[in-house]
């Protein structure tokens, strides 16, 4: 099993999805059960990866490599390292919880479940591909299901949001395709192998082409992250997507962008990235401040969480930009490693926390109040103690309260990037103030104060909602108090990334 475990992890969801397609109409229960079992099995397999995975070892593990299109040097090449492992488990966990949460979906159920599982295959594939062609295929495969999830099961402006999402990301994808081809044609021998390209550094002596390739990748990843000013698709997509779609979008699809910066831009084009790192850092900083301020002004709870994503992904990008600016500078290697550790930790933390926040918004909107207006509530704590407790926990984690996951991430990012961009980091720390203010004010408006009589009869979390939310809350606390196991996994990969950049 060890030899094929990555292939199994990636394609198990697709297999389950195909089985769902074969179930005749009307058997909704069976479809849900098959989807749930598939997602659970995938999660278990991905957790099982922790056993064969050697945490202390640098480089790729559990590699699989077969010829795919030998005529032009394309391989089916998968591998796992300390960067991809946490993302893989995050993906399988959130897909599982999303399917649990989606239990009450009844409209076009078969397509819904199939698309969700197909999406999971696409996302997992992105995180474990080590061949550019394969990477690109998975990257695009994850695009189409999301279009449908937003477009069919979304809110009132779903069609607009879906096509906007599709167009934006496709622009990025095609820019990336050009960059990939530029790398390919300048490599000697030509290859699409990502590890081989990192070793060769084909554009090291061609600064103009390296700049072009860098901006090509940048466009693809920055749209996905999304960085300011490429973020405008995000509020639309998040607000219109069905709850589980928002969860996946925020928790995992956005990470594909930052993952790209870490896996591709940084090691493959270090000089170009170093040169343009200040620009990236400033954009990240604008994202941090802008995201927090705009979120504060949102009357719509879902939009508020969406903009808080812009803010949080800004921290990730600040850490990555700091590491890029420090590339090749031995004196700053420690700062760079810390910043990257923080960035990856923030990716996971944001996945868990924002995933939970979107579920929380869904719980109140989909099945209870049918409104998301922050000002429509008030005093809910008295009515819904469990729900309120988890929500407040997630929001505090998001604003970076110590002993919760978000704090560890932000702290590391700031410590690391302060060594490289001290001025920018100081401004970014003020961004934390804004997001703290935003979340505290939100908590106050929704949960404190007099109870709005309209909601006097709302029921608290039911069992399925609790099953979807409690694991996330637990993870927030566990890794907030004791982040070491996760940091150990990340740290080896990040320190080898930093030391690999000459």
């Amino acid at each position, binding site marked *: 099993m060890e030899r094929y475990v990555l292939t199994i992890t990636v394609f198990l969801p697709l297999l389950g999805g195909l089985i769902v397609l074969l179930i005749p109409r009307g058997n909704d229960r069976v479809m849900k059960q098959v989807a749930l079992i598939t997602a659970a099995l995938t999660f278990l397999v991905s957790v099982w990866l922790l056993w064969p995975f050697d945490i202390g070892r640098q480089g790729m593990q559990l590699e699989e490599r077969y010829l795919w*299109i030998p005529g032009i040097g394309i391989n089916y090449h998968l591998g796992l390292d300390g960067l991809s492992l946490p993302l893989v488990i995050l993906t399988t966990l959130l897909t599982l919880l999303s399917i649990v949460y989606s239990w009450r979906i009844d409209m076009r159920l078969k397509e819904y479940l199939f698309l969700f599982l197909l999406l999971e295959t696409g996302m997992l594939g992105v995180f474990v591909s080590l061949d550019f062609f394969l990477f690109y295929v998975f990257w*695009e495969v994850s695009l189409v299901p999301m279009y*449908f999830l937003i477009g069919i099961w979304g809110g009132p402006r779903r069609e607009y949001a879906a096509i906007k999402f599709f167009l934006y990301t496709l622009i990025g994808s095609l820019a990336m395709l050009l960059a990939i081809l*530029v790398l390919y*044609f300048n490599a000697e021998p030509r290859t699409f192998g990502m590890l081989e390209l990192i070793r060769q550094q084909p554009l090291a002596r061609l600064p103009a082409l390296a700049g072009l390739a860098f901006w090509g990748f940048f466009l693809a990843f920055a749209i996905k992250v999304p960085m300011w000013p490429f973020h405008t698709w995000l509020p639309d997509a998040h607000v219109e997507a069905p709850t589980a779609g928002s969860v996946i979008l925020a928790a995992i699809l956005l990470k594909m962008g930052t993952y790209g910066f870490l896996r591709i831009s940084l090691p493959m084009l270090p000089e170009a990235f170093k040169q343009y790192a200040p620009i990236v850092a400033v954009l990240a900083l604008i994202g941090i401040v802008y995201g927090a301020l705009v979120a504060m002004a949102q009357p719509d709870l879902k939009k508020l969480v969406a903009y808080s994503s812009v803010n949080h992904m800004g921290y990730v990008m600040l850490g990555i930009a700091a590491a890029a600016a420090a590339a090749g500078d031995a004196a700053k290697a420690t700062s760079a490693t810390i910043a990257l550790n923080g960035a990856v930790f923030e990716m996971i933390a944001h996945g868990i926390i924002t995933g939970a926040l979107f579920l929380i918004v869904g719980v109140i909107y989909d099945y209870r109040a049918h409104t998301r207006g922050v000002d429509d509530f008030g005093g809910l704590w008295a009515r819904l103690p469990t729900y309120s407790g988890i929500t407040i926990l997630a929001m505090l984690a998001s604003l970076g309260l110590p002993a919760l996951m978000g704090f560890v991430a932000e702290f590391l990012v700031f410590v690391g990037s302060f060594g490289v961009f001290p001025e920018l980091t100081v401004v970014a720390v003020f961004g934390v103030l804004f997001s703290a203010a935003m979340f505290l004010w939100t908590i106050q408006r929704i949960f404190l104060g007099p109870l709005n009589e309209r909601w006097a009869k709302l029921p608290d979390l039911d069992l399925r909602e609790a099953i979807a939310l409690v694991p996330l809350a637990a993870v927030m606390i566990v890794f907030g108090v004791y982040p070491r196991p996760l940091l150990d996994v990340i740290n080896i990969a990040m320190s080898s990334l930093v030391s690999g950049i000459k």
Partner: protein
Amino acid sequence: MPIPPEDLWALAPEFWLTGLGLLLILLDLFTDRSRKGIVGWIAIAGLLLSLLPILAMLGQPARTAFFNTYAVDGFAVFFKAIIVGSTILVILAATDYFRGQTSYEGELYILLVFTALGLVLMAGSADLILLALAIEFVSLTSYVLAGYFKTDAKSTEAGIKYFLFGAGATAVMIYGFSILYGLTGETGLYAIAERIRTAPQPALVVGLSLSLAGFGFKISMVPFHQWTPDVYEGAPTPIAAYLSVASKAAGFAALVRLLLVTFAPTGFDWVTLIAGLAAVSMTVGNLLALPQGNIKRMLAYSSISHAGFLLIAVAAFRGDFGTPGLLMYILAYTFTNLGAFFVAMAVGQRLGSDVIADYAGLAQRSPWLALLMLFFMLSLTGIPPLAGFFGKFYILGGAINNGLLWLAIVGIVNSVISLYYYVNVIRVMYLLPATSPEPVREPPALRVALGITALGTLIVGLFPQPFINLVGTATLLLRF
């Protein structure tokens, strides 16, 4: 001069097609009106058999026949296979479509076989006169096919329009040919190539530009594209499908041969000219496709933009990405575009409408048909892992490899634009509610044709290695 027997063998497919056409005429005479479908089936069988000599020639060394007037090289053979293959698929898909719509069903299959013969000749012609004859031959049969439904005003209009534009374009092209002849005193492409080096540059520009009119008309290149939407809309859908694929492929074969054999030795920078035309065709086709509400008109404008994309490959027809790029794209485009037209045929036949809005809720009414259309639309956009993506991948690679990065950028910008109107079809099929729960059923023969095109679209995208090998043998273009 005696004709060597190898020359006759080299023309086996052409002879076979001629014989098949004549046989079908006879057969049609003696077939009862209600059983004309037999003519179609025999045509399919005969075309399938003609693939045998064509495929047998694939690996063989390139040569010319009949005193250097006809090239038999991997390049021509590849296009012959594409042309015959798409003829088979179109007849297969159309048998049910034509039954009952016209009382001249048998003649239609005969005309299609003869058109295929003309297209095959176009792909191999290495002489200006033979080329002009082949193009005229194809045009004549195509005019009749486009206007086949005599009682249908739109079909008649399509026929007339196609004829008028075609006659004009051919006249201009032949004028261009005459200039080339005047400059060199030769009609054979290889002979012209030998002498053209000394020809004055301005005369060359005029000769090439005028000749391009004829090819531009066949491949629907801007500015010779105006006929395309009206003809595709008015012509019977299977004929539109055929024109968009087979006729276009043959046009590209002839164009590439003329450019690479004849103009490559001159110092004239035709690459920039073609690159410019590529950019304009892509952009104009895509922008005009955006507001279309009729599926056939949309596919017409999309085929103009695909012609532009293929022209990138013509401009970058060098190296190990550029040369196979054109062929790979044509292969992918053949499967995908035929498939899209076949779905339009099935829907048009059952709903009596080609309006995209009438596809509303097709995913509920006929999940399979909608799923296939989804594949075809995504493949035309260039989303992996479908064939269209692999074609684009090759062409973009070829452009970058040959220093045409700007053109590759124009290409990707256009791909993004095209997403909008392709996804519109998907949106209508999947996102909008069905107006009636009644399923849209496709006849069995059409189902087989759809299955083949869908499989092709998937397999070329997922396991392209065998096709890379095939295309590799076909890049062998006999040059001067």
